[in-house]
């Protein structure tokens, strides 16, 4: 029994690591045939030792902390604004008609395109970075909140009205939980988008930067091992947050309520 269980746990990890192994092999082959050209392409082993060293000397933790400080406050603000405003837009047709066109106009603009403009007002400050992160996560979250609210089964609202709930209680107690699956999707997309814009913004507003600045500056010093370390860390943190925060949130809500199944079995 125990053996079966451990196999079931290990199997997806083993399957999922196949592409990584292939990349590693190609990386090594590429390195092997280019090592005498005098070019500074790092081997996987060099990169890994550089990774360890950067952790030990405190550089990486410090960079991660700086990046998170740039990322988390505007993301949380965007989350609150988008849920509140998106719910209102989802419910009220007039407000929807007023604000939907401007949202559609903002949506396709790459969030980094705001930066030159915003630096004009705010200078090379943390607020400038925050603005970019806010915009980039806000539009993605609000789109999903709106469609989540608009697509709920009207019968839930009727049942709640029948039980005598007032409007506020219907919104908070019925409409929001009903729209929750799409709200979580919005949060995930918004977070991904915020994270991508963050690295870009940090490359431009260099003095306040964390990982973005690190990747950018390492390139100037031809420290390509560090560039790769930076890229890997970005991806590791995203995976960590996805697994720790969003997966847990889904497990305690959507899975528990039967909106989605835990594993995708056919």
């Amino acid at each position, binding site marked *: 029994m125990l053996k079966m269980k451990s196999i079931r746990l290990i199997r997806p990890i083993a399957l999922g690591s196949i592409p990584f192994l292939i990349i590693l092999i190609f990386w090594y082959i590429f390195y092997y045939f280019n090592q005498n050209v005098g070019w500074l392409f790092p081997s996987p082993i060099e990169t890994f030792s550089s990774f360890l060293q950067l952790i030990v000397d405190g550089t990486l933790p410090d960079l991660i902390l700086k990046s998170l400080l740039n990322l988390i406050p505007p993301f949380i603000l965007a989350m609150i604004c988008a849920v509140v405003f998106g719910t209102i837009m989802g*419910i009220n*047709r007039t407000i929807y008609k007023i604000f939907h066109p401007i949202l559609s106009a903002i949506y396709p603009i790459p969030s980094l395109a705001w930066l030159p403009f915003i630096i004009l007002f705010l200078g090379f400050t943390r607020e400038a970075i925050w603005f970019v992160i806010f915009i980039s996560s806000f539009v993605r979250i609000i789109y999903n909140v709106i469609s989540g609210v608009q697509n709920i*089964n*009207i*019968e*839930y*609202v*009727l*049942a709640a*009205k*029948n*039980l*005598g*709930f007032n409007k506020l*209680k*219907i919104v908070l107690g*019925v409409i929001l*939980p009903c729209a*929750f699956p799409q709200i979580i999707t919005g949060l995930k997309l918004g977070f991904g988008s915020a994270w991508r814009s963050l690295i870009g913004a940090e490359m431009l507003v260099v003095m306040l930067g964390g990982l973005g600045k690190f990747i950018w500056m390492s390139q100037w010093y031809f420290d390509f091992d560090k560039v790769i370390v930076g890229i890997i860390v970005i991806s590791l943190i995203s995976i960590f947050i996805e697994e720790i925060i969003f997966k847990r949130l889904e497990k305690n*809500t959507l899975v*528990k*309520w*039967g*909106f989605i199944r835990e594993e995708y079995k056919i």
Partner: protein
Amino acid sequence: MLDLLRVNKFFGENDDFEVLKDVSISAENGEFVCILGPSGCGKTILLYLIAGFLKPTEGKILMENASISEPNCNRMMIFQNYVLFPWKTVYKNILFALDKSTLTNSEKDALIVRYLDMMGLIAFRDWYPYKLSGGMQQRVALARALVANPKLLLMDEPFAALDLQHRKFLRKNLETIWQKTKKTIIFVTHSPNEAISLADKIYLLSARPAVIKKTYQIDLPRPRDSLNPDFIKLNIEIEKDLSEEFEKAIKNPLMEESLLHILNLTKKGEIL
């Protein structure tokens, strides 16, 4: 206790989509009334009007001689697909119905446990709805409606999505509850057999725009036996009337428009 006086319900910008026309229905206190009609004829809309979710275009709906203006727990709706709140356990779903009640917590608890017991759901009190079968979910919905102590139960094809065994069981269950609690019930169905098994009075609606085509008073003794010759005779008669309307409905594609589509035609702010 309930009177619909020449109720019209039209949808669309210019009220050009006629759903109910000149419908007059009445239910005495404690009466079991069935509304029978072909699919898509506006039966659900009729219940929505009585529940107060929608307003009639013309005509009056009176309950105990007072006009109905908005939803109220006096009139509880039972939906075809149960509409339990998925994020609440069975117990908390029922507790939701006591939100406005002035009872103390222990009184609420006793009341809920009583209804859970009546429905045979005690063992499932902490389950989330998605884990329950359709029949069990409908029992939870029934308990939730009854706990609010309504005078009128509005049931929209409540057993239509269930298997035959469950349907029979719940019909019987409902009949017992009805006899015990003396509630007035308006029960929508498309099955003549179901209507004859349960009703004191049956209104047959025509294809859309729905008018009352016929009224049947059912005086067969209870519990009713579907093999009783009178039952069978009545069944054949009603079946024939219903088929005629069904033929009309199916020939006209406009009549097959779904409830969702019709609700999309509601005017701004009518539902939320």
